[in-house]
């Protein structure tokens, strides 16, 4: 499992997961699950276009993710947000399908772009992926305060001069870059699971943002590592395990939160009983 040809995969996954965890925390906080799902689909189109033109896949991914993010941001000013996201998503996917239909390796290409390829990471891609990852983390650090403000208390943010729309565009750009760096390993359709499952679980465990972000990173790393190991052992696609484990993490988080709620709900009962006894 740790043979030399697998080292790249472990390395990329270890870079990708924390970024997904951090960016994902804000995706969950802002309720941006749909755009977070749509932008990777744009990335798919980009990779397909890049394959068609013969340029670097990563470049195609980055360019189209950004286009998708900006498109959603721009169209979202005039139309309903969820409708715009849905239409932008399918348009980009359809473009990807059109690009791919012109190349000769239609089927395996679609598959690995959409669902990820454990062995799909070459050494030359490591450095750019790391660079993108650092850029995304830096972006989040720079945006941290206005992002938190506009996500949690948008009116206060506006009053403080933080323009909600501008923050939204910046955030979508960060999501786009995160997507571009993660698609090669996990695939366009499944980076999304990494960005919402682990952070959602982390938020069920704690409401403190700092701790939640750390937990989100930890759970994302665990998810990706287990997924790689399982994919290597059972020879099933890594995307399947990422999707399944994210769902498990989310489910576990919800069960835990529900259990905590029943425990705290029982506490006032003696107080209630004393009041009713007096009455």
């Amino acid at each position: 499992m740790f043979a030399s040809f697998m080292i790249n995969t472990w390395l990329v996954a270890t870079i990708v997961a924390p970024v997904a965890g951090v960016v994902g925390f804000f995706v969950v906080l802002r309720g941006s699950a749909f755009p977070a799902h749509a932008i990777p689909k744009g990335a798919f189109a980009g990779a397909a276009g890049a394959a068609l033109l013969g340029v670097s896949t990563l470049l195609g991914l980055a360019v189209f993710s950004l286009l998708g993010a900006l498109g959603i941001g721009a169209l979202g000013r005039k139309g309903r947000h969820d409708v715009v996201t849905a239409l932008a998503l399918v348009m980009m996917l359809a473009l990807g399908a059109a690009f791919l239909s012109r190349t000769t390796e239609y089927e395996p290409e679609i598959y690995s772009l959409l669902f990820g390829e454990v062995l799909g990471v070459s050494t030359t891609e490591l450095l750019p992926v790391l660079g993108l990852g650092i850029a995304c983390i830096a972006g989040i650090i720079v945006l941290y305060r206005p992002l938190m403000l506009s996500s949690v208390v948008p009116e206060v943010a506006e009053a403080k001069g933080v323009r909600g729309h501008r923050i939204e565009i910046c955030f979508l750009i960060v999501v786009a870059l995160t997507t571009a760096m993660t698609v090669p390993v996990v695939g366009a359709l499944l980076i999304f699971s990494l960005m919402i499952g682990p952070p959602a679980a982390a938020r069920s465990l704690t409401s403190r943002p700092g701790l939640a972000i750390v937990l989100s990173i930890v759970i994302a790393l665990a998810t990706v590592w287990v997924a790689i190991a399982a994919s290597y052992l059972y020879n099933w696609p890594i995307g399947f395990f990422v999707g399944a484990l994210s769902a498990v993490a989310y489910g576990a988080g919800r069960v835990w939160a529900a259990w905590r709620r029943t425990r705290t709900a029982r506490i006032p009962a003696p107080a209630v009983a004393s009041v009713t006894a007096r009455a």
Partner: protein
Amino acid sequence: MHRIYGWVFEPGFFASQPVHVALVIGGVVAVVSAVTGVFTVMRGQSFGGHALGDVSAAGGSGALLIGFSPIAGFVGLGIVGAGVMDLIGVQRLRSRDLATGIVLGAAIGMSALFLYVNTSSGATQQILFGSIFTASSATIGVVVILGALALATLAAICRPLLLATVSPDIAAARGIPVRLIGIAYMLALAVSVGLSSVATGAILSTALLIGPAAAALRLTRRVSTAVVAACLIGVAAAWVGILLTYDSYYWGSARRLPVSFFIVAVVFAAYLLAGLCSRWAVSRAATAAVTQAVASADQIAA
């Protein structure tokens, strides 16, 4: 004139049997999707509609794996998915989107597995991007019956559904079983998405669901008009898409562009056009209102 006709309708278009099948299936699917889509857009459940598309993909790929027709899988797992989403979904919008996303992610993972294990060629393309030109005429019957069922369900619940969409509390106060209505709607949605997966593939069923409906709702506020407009736009998109796909075979290179691409492109264009039209209409109305205000001000002043 004849040359333009020949350029638009490439030879053999109207005689081709696969084209006939495609036009019928495309038309039926477009109508069902458009009607369902109007309610989906009004309920703000575009993400849910899209998620069901990906759940359908898992169903279709699973069905292919065990040798069943993909339609059974598309619709079957779609219904199960709709039930699961309803079960774990909560009232707050953000939590509902999160739950939807998780279901979607798990479903995509399952698609990945099924398509990987399936060694026959073309499976990925068929499930994800549609097989309208390779569908057999037997499929037409299934599509029409299921489509009619979905439409009948929506027609039956359309009034309570509208009220529950606009104001769930008032609907509940009036004795409408909001939860049951919601479930019935989700089932109709699942069937609609499953059927359109045949035409454009699971991933792009969203285009026929949301696009025509959103375009129609930009043009009119009345639900009944919107439904009719959405159907017209949807069928036009499907048929123009099929025509363009057929024509693309004769243009330039020998490779067709996928039908899903053309249908989605037409739908997207229709949406943008509707946006322009509505803004033009709004500015016209605004200009008219201003002119009238100025005129009446002049009258008062005079």
